[in-house]
């Protein structure tokens, strides 16, 4: 019988090889890949996200857990069939133009993937046009913008405006976050969602995609 708790425990500790092996064992026992993914890997990432939010784990622990999750996914993905990978929702994420800080953005990406969402990562220094173009091409549900600087956070407003200009504002949720960003700022630029941390961002994104 697949030991989901063990998978979760090892994944939280970042023990990638063991996670990979346990995922392979579970498949060999006949457990469906979707079940291993949800009860093992994604549930572990939820726990990591909560602990991160509560200051119980920090950046290295999140990154190492994400690495272990990817090791597990390597085994699970080939075994998945149509229907296992139903897309819950798609998020285009990036750090805004002029800003090269990507630690926070990467953490949000990890947590979004931990919710089973599909994430298109545009990296750092991303122009408003690039966000919009990608969101249209990928038929994304959400654009998630990150900024660490008070001087670059204003770029988020350009993203909102570009969405209006492209005629997609009503069809896309714009989410903002980063050290200097606040709910008040989010409201002032007409964005939809502010999230203070990566776990909250992923909770809110999932809510948008499943409502």
């Amino acid at each position, binding site marked *: 019988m697949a030991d989901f708790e063990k998978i979760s425990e090892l994944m939280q500790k*970042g023990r990638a090889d063991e996670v990979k092996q346990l995922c392979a064992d579970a498949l060999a026992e006949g457990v469906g890949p979707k079940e291993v993914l949800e009860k093992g890997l994604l549930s572990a990432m939820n726990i990591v996200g909560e602990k991160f939010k509560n*200051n119980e*784990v*920090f*950046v*290295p*622990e999140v*990154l*190492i857990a994400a*690495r272990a999750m990817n090791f597990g996914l390597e085994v699970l993905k080939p075994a998945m069939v149509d229907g296992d990978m139903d897309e819950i929702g798609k998020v285009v994420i990036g750090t805004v133009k*002029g*800003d*090269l*800080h*990507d*630690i926070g953005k*990467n953490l949000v990406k990890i947590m979004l993937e931990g919710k089973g969402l599909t994430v298109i990562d545009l990296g750092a220094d991303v122009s408003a046009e690039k966000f919009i173009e990608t969101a249209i091409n990928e038929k994304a549900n959400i654009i998630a913008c990150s900024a660490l*600087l*008070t*001087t*670059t956070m204003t770029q988020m407003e350009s993203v909102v405006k570009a969405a209006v200009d492209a005629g997609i504002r009503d069809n896309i949720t714009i989410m903002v976050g980063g*050290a*200097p960003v*606040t709910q*008040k*700022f989010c409201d002032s630029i007409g964005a939809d969602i502010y999230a203070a941390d990566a776990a909250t961002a992923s909770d809110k994104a999932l809510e948008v995609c499943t409502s």
Partner: protein
Amino acid sequence: MTGKEKIIAVLNKEKIDSIPWLPFAGVHAGKLKGYTAKEVSTDAGKLIDSLREVNKLYKPDGQPIMFDLQIEAEILGCELLWSEDAPPTVASHPLSDVSDIPTHIPAVDEGRIPLSVEAMKAMKAEIGEHTALYGLITGPFTLASHLRGTNIFMDMIMNPEYVTSLLEYTTRVANAVAGYYIEAGMDVIAVVDPLVSQISPAHFAEFMDKPFSKVFDYIRTNGAFSSFFVCGNATANIAPMCMTKPDSISVDENVNLAEAKKVTDSFDIVIGGNIPLTSIMLFGTQQDNMKNTIDLIDSLDNTDRLIIAPGCDMPYDIPIENTIGVQQAVHQTDQIRAMVENYECTEIVFEGELPDYANLERPLIEVFTLDSITCAACTYMKASAMDIKKHFGDKVDMVEYKYTEPQNIARCKVMEVKQLPSIYINGELKYSSIIPNRAGFVSEVEKCL
């Protein structure tokens, strides 16, 4: 007591009557003189000019020379992305794909260290007598991350020996640069390491305790005081930071200052902080800044071993009057507490009558100040108005309204005066916070004659 004496007394854990004030005007200093962030980061003359203005307007007890965590990284091969309204950002990490340990230690004549040292020496000569000067260096962990990139976080778990070796190297760099800055006359060396908030106390103990202890020990041995600056939610690491024995710690608004102070007090270490940079200093009003500062001071069990400072490096565009508001609240706490109460009291009704601005006999210069005796910027603003009055004599009227009087607060509300100090001519706002130059002021008045 001079500002410098206050800072030094507090760092010596002595009890003093007032709280020292340490505005972190990095590139924001340039705004005071109309220079861009890049100009004050690369041109010693413009930097010194701006630092002089910070000292004049913000009346700091302690003042940093540069708040730039890219100086060492640039010398060690990181490319920088420059900005007109922010410090540069590291754009490439030379060790991102190779696990090497560099050996080069920046020399005193490399990169922008000469610029920094020149400004330090100039400010030491000009204001060093009365203002404690802070030399800021990049902390060993943040410097290691500049060199290695975000891989450093994974390395902490997967390649801990490498991280230890890299930190040994960046500690040597930190000590070298600290030495140059002490030599240039800095009273306090601040070791700035924002990334410390992103790791657990266990990782701090494993990797950071030794490097930071070494740096603080080096600074102490070389006769300067030290401070450990961190940004972000470093709550869990305050005690481990104290164990590295800095003289003081500075935190941003993500940390509850009252709670953190209990920890630093238990180690007999000074704490500095933590006026919110964005929500209050950048986007708030002058009133918000005064109130927030008073509330912050009032939230603490005691005001010993305390320095009031912005949470971190001040954004370039912080309105000047906001910083003046914070400075007044730190230096004249009781008086500003009363002002804030009066301002919030909606019952004060303006009992006077506003001048009939459209039909004045002669131009009317109105100077609105927090208090022209204690607020430096207000003193200069009033002096410039008095100078103009002297120039025009009986052809103009001039009056000062100090915010210390409830009726003057009521007048400000009626006239919608938002920033202090300000100068209005014939009921119209002409100058706010920045002291007008004489020629411009004269011509403004002449237009109304």
